């Protein structure tokens, strides 16, 4: 689960960037902590760290904080995070995908052609 590619950082707002960092940090934290209670404690500490600077207005400092946070996330993220079975790369992902509709259903001209062929085979034409 890649966090966010550098070329995409420019396409999102600052708020989205902070939100993604926070959400991904929580998710990876859950992959590290086995017990929910331990995760809860760590999540509260994480929340405090984000809340501590929520009223910061200095743009340069905000930028630096965010970059530091992203670098910390990159270094501390779980190498093999939990993936939901039905999500991409999950254990059930792409299992028995239904065939595309054009395989199951004939187009109008195919139906016409099929009917003609059946008639020909039955000797009606």
């Amino acid at each position, binding site marked *: 689960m890649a966090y966010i590619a550098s070329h995409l950082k420019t396409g999102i707002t600052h708020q989205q960037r902070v939100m993604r960092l926070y959400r991904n940090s929580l998710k990876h934290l859950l992959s590290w902590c086995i017990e929910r209670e*331990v995760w809860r404690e760590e999540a509260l500490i994480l929340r405090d760290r984000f809340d501590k600077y929520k009223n910061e207005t200095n743009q340069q400092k905000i930028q630096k904080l965010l970059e530091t946070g992203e670098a910390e996330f990159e270094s501390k993220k779980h190498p093999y995070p939990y993936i939901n079975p039905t999500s991409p790369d999950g254990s059930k992902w792409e299992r028995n*995908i239904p065939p595309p509709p054009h395989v199951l259903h004939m187009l109008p001209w195919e139906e016409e052609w099929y009917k003609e062929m059946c008639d020909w085979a039955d000797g009606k034409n």
Partner: protein
Amino acid sequence: MYTCILFLLVVGALAAGVGGRKLGEKGAGILTSSCLIISLSWSVLIFYEIILSFSTTHIKLWRWLDSDLLTVYFGLQFDGLVAIMLLVITTISTLVHIFSTAYMLGDPHIPRFMSYLSFFTFLMVVLVSSDNYLQLFIGWEGVGLCSYLLINFWLTRVEANKAAIKAMLVNRVGDIGLILAMFGLLDRFGSLEFSSLFNVVVVSAPSSDITLICLLLFIGAVGKSAQLGLHTWLPDAMEGPTPVSALIHAATMVTAGVFLLIRSSPFFEQAPLALMIVTIVGSLTVLFAATVGVIQNDLKKVIAYSTCSQLGYMVVACGLSHYSISLFHLMNHAFFKALLFLSAGSVIHALSDEQDIRKMGGLIKLIPLTYIMVVVGSLSLMGFPYLTGFYSKDLILELAFEQYYLTFAYWLGGFSALLTTLYSIRLVYLTFLSNTNSRKAIFRRVHEGSWNLVLPLIILALGSLFVGYLTKEVVWSFQITFPPIVPVFIKLLPVFLSLGGAALVIVLYFYSIHLFKVPSFIGRMGYTFLYSAWQFNYVLNYFLAKRVWRGGHQISYRTIDKGTLELVGPKGVSNFLIGLTRGLSNLQAGQVFNYALVILIGVAMFIWGVV
């Protein structure tokens, strides 16, 4: 009866494969399972005839290859080794077939699945019952092919495609070893039949030729039995459905390599160097796989690495020349490992295909029977006294201690016993005992499976409890050496180490759970190193496979195929002929003096010829 086992298995496979659409999901399941039940009953009779009545059977069916250099018959050889292997294969396969009828319910391709399972079993029986290396190789390749088909059963999954191709390619490396070994045997002895070869080799002196042949055979076994270096396909093969993992990775395919070592034991006895290498690779595999299994989070991968580790024990026993003990552990391992895999399947089935143990927990109250099964399988795997695994695993360790120059196999194996306990109890704790981390909607639907999901587990649990005790005398009777005499401390050390592992798990998971949060930098490095299986995939891909691929592309493809061969071959010939015909066609330009010149030359030659 002997040939009918093969016939029945292939009939079941073909009927389910070709007529699956007519038979339907239920019909295919019933047909293939019935064929397997009949094969199992015949295997029991064969076991009785061969092991208990001491009647070895050898059937020559037909002459298959006949040339000046080589004559090969298609024959079946049923001796003690084959009888035990047959019993193990058909028992596990029958139970896996029955289990699959419930586990795969709802899948749109059940007849294909049942057909693959039966065909796989058929080819495994071909492998073990063959009387020569060439026929063995058919079964060897056949199980490789079927493993590809079964791992890739959900063929719409890219991960399954990749895992299946990886299994196929890694196994090919081992297969090349086996092929070269067969060439070596043919060159050295002029035959590929077991009876001829073994009679000759026991009276021949040890030589470098035999050592080389043994090492090549061992490369084949390393590939098939997922030993260190060529093990990378085994954990990835967990992409297949869980019954496939139980069949392929517990009882049949991975044991083919160990079977090859046991079958070729007369050669290995003439090659002490090869035996030493076998022991070293086996003991390193035991330790490596156990360390990796300790921190895996995928339920099936924990069991897969455990399989890898236990196969290491079997290979160590072969390296120590105790082939019957290796066979004994193979048989015991088949029961408790199939039980663990099928129990894992039951858990995954109950949790709507969730495989990550981080999202499990608290299942003891909802699926208590499966919990008991996992505990029985794990205790047997750990070598808990008087359970099936105990009789063979501890014996292998004791035998390893006896070997003065390879005692390290004992210490590695002993330490791995601690790790085995560690990952087994961790698995039980995180899956059943800890507070649940499942989603509420999934957790509320958890329940035990139907009778065909539970019955195989109960039978395998009985096997995991009693098979070791009941058959120890039978297998020990094959042993020509005396039981080892080792100090009591050494005898008890594996048990103490296992207890130490259990204590460590209890301390870590029951009392120090708060330690499991984001680790330090060194902790993260260690975790990543172990989780990624010592970075073997990276090393093999970037330092070996990539260079071999690049070399293959530059040398084999561009320089030879598209370069030299094209210039000398089709393209060169075509260019030459095009140039020639173009030159000849230029002669026919429609100019009178050209024709006059040709006529003049013709007349001159005619006159010169007459004169």
